């Protein structure tokens, strides 16, 4: 009696209370996150070039190695958190990973020495911090109603139905953490130079959003 939202779980790893399960859907998302994390790990950062409009003048922005090192670390941390969120079978773990993706997204651009970018990162960080309230509250209501945080239990359909408000709060929390389709609000942050790392922001947002849709369809 397992509902076929993301496909039948091919493999369930029970690790105490925590569990990890793999369906064709989550495997795809996981592999995508893994690929981009490896890309962030091995690729050389870009150098941003500003071209003056209507002339031949251009200038390259200088970025220190330290700054790039920090941003690469944050991009990898973001990738790891995304991978965790893709395969976890526990609602609360998913919210924790989502919150961590939110922090690392801010971290990726926070090292940039541009007042615009820093201001945008700070304001976006405030929103992400506020969004942890509906995020954790949603997970708490899930636990209160069904008595379990396990997605496998939700799939089986043996637990009481999850109220709409819990799903709504979970969704609101994920959106507030800056996930798709609202990551357009973070556009100011993407002014930061450094191609492979900034892309991690968009990619992790997209993957988390795809996963939360699956979770909401479950219970």
């Amino acid at each position: 009696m397992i509902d076929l939202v993301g496909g039948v779980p091919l493999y369930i790893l029970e690790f105490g209370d925590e569990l990890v399960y793999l369906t064709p859907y989550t495997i795809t998302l996981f592999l995508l996150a893994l690929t981009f994390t490896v890309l962030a790990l091995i690729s050389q950062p870009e150098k941003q070039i500003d071209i003056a409009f209507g002339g031949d003048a251009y200038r390259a922005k200088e970025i220190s190695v330290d700054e790039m090192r920090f941003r690469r670390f944050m991009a990898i941390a973001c990738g790891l958190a995304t991978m965790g969120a893709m395969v976890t079978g526990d609602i609360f773990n998913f919210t924790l990973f989502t919150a961590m993706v939110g922090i690392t997204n801010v971290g990726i651009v926070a090292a940039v020495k541009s007042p615009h970018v820093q201001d945008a990162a700070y304001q976006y960080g405030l929103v992400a911090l506020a969004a942890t309230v509906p995020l954790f509250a949603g997970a708490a209501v899930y636990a209160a109603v069904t008595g379990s945080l396990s997605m496998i239990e939700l799939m089986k359909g043996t637990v009481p139905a999850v109220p709409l408000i819990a799903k709504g709060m979970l969704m609101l929390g994920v959106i507030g953490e800056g996930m798709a389709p609202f990551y357009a609000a973070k556009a100011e942050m993407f002014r930061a130079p450094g191609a492979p790392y900034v892309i991690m922001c968009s990619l992790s947002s997209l993957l988390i959003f795809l996963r939360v849709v699956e979770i909401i369809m479950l219970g």
Partner: protein
Amino acid sequence: MWAQYSYGILVIMVAAVIAFYALARERDDLHKLLLLDLVEIVALGIIAMLGTDLAEALILPGLTVGIAELLALSQIYCTKEGIRNRPVMGLNIEVITKSDAPLILSIFLVAYGMVLSGFTGGGVAGLGLVFLFISRTYRNDLNLLEMASGISWAIWIFAFFVFMFLPQYWFVALMGAAIGILLKVTVKMSLVGTMWGKQHD
């Protein structure tokens, strides 16, 4: 029984509305951050309303993530506003810096923390050490303390693996986890105390 929880949730919702209203009116960046810290506590309150062991297990990571976000944002705020090297003053109270009272109080708190053990014990013992380090200027190498913190964390994790894979040795694992978290929290909190006292001139 249900009514009590409903009242609790009602109180939390009112608190959340007040906090978010304050947040919407506030214009200063720093004050917004401080208000968000209050809002975060509301989220933990909702989790606490589960009223089970699970709630306790969920509050801890929730709190950690909240603190991590708060630290990251305050760091960005400092960079954004160009704030650096602000001297932190220690406690310049003669009774505290000269007499033996802080030492005695700290010993009492640490001993009581050992009796309590676990996370609460770590908190109490750590508080004792923080108090001592704040009142005395302590300038030794912090690497040793950091190493102790790391090792005790490893003990804690190791104990969890025993719980999972060798459940028949649960008592050893319980003791290991209790001692590990006691040392971990104590050391972490005393590090806060030394970092505070470091710039005490």
